[in-house]
């Protein structure tokens, strides 16, 4: 019996040693190589990053995106490697990326770990305000070697921002909330993008004193706050007339809210108010139009 155990132990050890050797071989072959050229195969791990890359003309170098990336239209045909917090490493490796760009939502351990190990440069961007979005556009442009175009886009964004500021200079702040969901009612709280947009668009976020970033409000509490405008952020194509009619129908159940009384319910595309990419300015303009319709001439209609 003891001898049998010894034999088994010996063979187990040998097999383990061989496996370790094989692993070492494979591992060393997977080690990083030096890299000095501009990235030619970029993987984006957030829709905002994808939009930015395409806007600055690096779209033809993007080889992988997330499930949620949907703009511009060509993106739908690109291989998907995951979503914000989880992605399929195998799929990503199969795309042979030489640069990965992610937002700070992505699991940093995995990014630092996997990618550094394999010598794949990773850029993590952080953007929680409109200003930071503009900075991020430049940052991404630098990282992928498209500085000039990025500079142009960023400059355009800054210009439109300045113009907006001018227009809104003397207007009173309009009390408003931005809702992501109706039932339960989830609003944009302090520190979010939408909060920053509301501020820049000449409004005051009635939910800015919440403790959480995406607080759940009861309708009663909203009634107490009495916002003058209610903006709903709708996902995917649902921001046309039909969506607005539905929103109005819902809110008519609470006529005591000033926004409902005056019929100032607006629906905007959720993507343009939550993705920190070049389209954020459009979102900003849409919200501004909802808050101060009198300042915007009739030709510029809602999207």
């Amino acid at each position, binding site marked *: *019996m003891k001898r*049998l155990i010894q034999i*088994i132990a010996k063979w187990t050890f040998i097999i383990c040693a061989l496996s370790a050797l094989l*692993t070492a071989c*494979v*591992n060393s*072959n*997977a080690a990083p*190589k030096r890299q000095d050229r501009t990235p030619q195969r970029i993987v984006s791990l957030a829709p905002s990053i994808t939009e930015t890359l395409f806007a600055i003309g690096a779209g033809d170098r993007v080889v992988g995106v997330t*499930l949620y990336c949907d703009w511009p239209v060509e993106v739908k045909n690109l291989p*998907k*490697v*995951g*979503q*914000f*917090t*989880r*992605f*399929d*490493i*195998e*799929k990503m*490796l*199969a795309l*042979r990326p030489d640069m990965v760009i992610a937002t700070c*939502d992505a*699991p*940093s*351990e*995995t990014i*630092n*770990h*996997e990618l550094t*190990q*394999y010598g794949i440069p990773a850029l993590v961007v952080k953007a929680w305000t409109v200003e930071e979005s503009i900075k991020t556009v430049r940052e991404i442009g630098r990282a992928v070697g498209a500085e000039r175009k990025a500079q142009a886009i960023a400059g355009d964004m800054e210009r439109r921002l300045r113009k907006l500021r001018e227009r809104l200079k003397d207007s009173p702040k309009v009390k408003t909330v931005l809702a992501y969901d109706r039932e339960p009612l989830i609003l944009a709280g302090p520190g979010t993008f939408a909060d920053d947009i509301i501020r820049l668009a000449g409004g005051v976020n009635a939910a800015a004193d919440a403790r*959480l*970033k*995406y607080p759940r409000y009861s309708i009663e509490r909203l009634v107490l706050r009495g916002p003058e405008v209610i903006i709903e952020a709708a996902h995917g194509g649902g921001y046309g007339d039909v969506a607005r009619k539905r929103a109005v129908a819902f809110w008519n159940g609470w006529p005591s809210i000033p926004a409902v009384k005056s019929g100032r319910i607006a629906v905007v595309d959720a993507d343009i108010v939550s993705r920190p990419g070049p389209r954020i300015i459009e979102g900003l303009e849409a919200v501004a139009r909802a808050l101060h319709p009198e300042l915007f001439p009739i030709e510029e209609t809602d999207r």
Partner: protein
Amino acid sequence: MRKPLTAGRWVITIAVLAVLCAVAIAAAISVGTTPVKPWDFWSSIGTEEHIWIARILDYRMRRAILAALIGAGLATAGGGFQAILRNPLAEPYLLGVMGGGAFGAVFVMAFDITGMGVRPLAAFIGSALSMALVWIIARGGKSGPRAHSLILAGVIVNAFFAGIIMFATSVLGTGKVKSFLFWMMGDLASERGPGWLIFVGLYVVLGLVLILPLSRDYNLLALGEDSARQLGVEVGRVKMLTYIGACIITAACVSVAGLIGFVGLIVPHTIRLALGPDHRLLLPACVLGGAFFLLVCDTAARSLFPVTEIPIGAVTAFFGGPFFLWLLRRRGAGIFSERS
């Protein structure tokens, strides 16, 4: 109708299981979301693809090793708990060890403490803390805590931590919650550096070294604690060694891969139904069987659905539950025998 264990039967059974394991590892390295196969490693030498193929194989290999280690460890820890609690329904999850680990992870996530290795470390400390808590609450005399006390204490500690976790998830932002939930359901994808593999490997081996030699004592424990003592078993010592061994295995596994339940319950149970309750065969078989089971589950978890992986905790439950039910019905035997 079963004959007592002989050396011959032991060797053959272990050999067959070892072969199954080897096959499972080979399959795990060959299957993934991309059509890369192990032999491509050599056929692609010299091409630009080679290094990427090597990296993909490396990823699969590390994941397979992790799955095998964790499966082996959790299954044996479950077997050990079942032996000292004299209850076939015991498993690491039940005894509060996992609750503490989850708490550690939530804590770190809630307060935004980031950095390499922070979450696993917190989970490990949490697990260790909750295991100590369970032992203390169930405090017994010279012969260690009574089985009932341990189970009860485990349920209490689990409930306590579950409450904290529920509170935390209701208050944290959705992004964090989603990430945490995935971790909680078992995630073999996040920590896979060689350092972590060695960490898990070390603790699993340590735990196995504590538990496996106690096999004969576990057999004797089935007669009852008093009878076991009357046959020369130091019951208190056996309980403590088993508890420590099972807990360090579980803490290490939880810290790296989140909560993977059912392995510690189903694998020992199934092997007991198939091979008999003699722990001298059962436990080594659990080592191999557990590795096999988790390898299959992990391979399925990451390859069945493209892009978004199923959490492995869901796969173990999904596969394990019905399979166990089928085995039980076939055998017809009771889960455990009672004679007062």
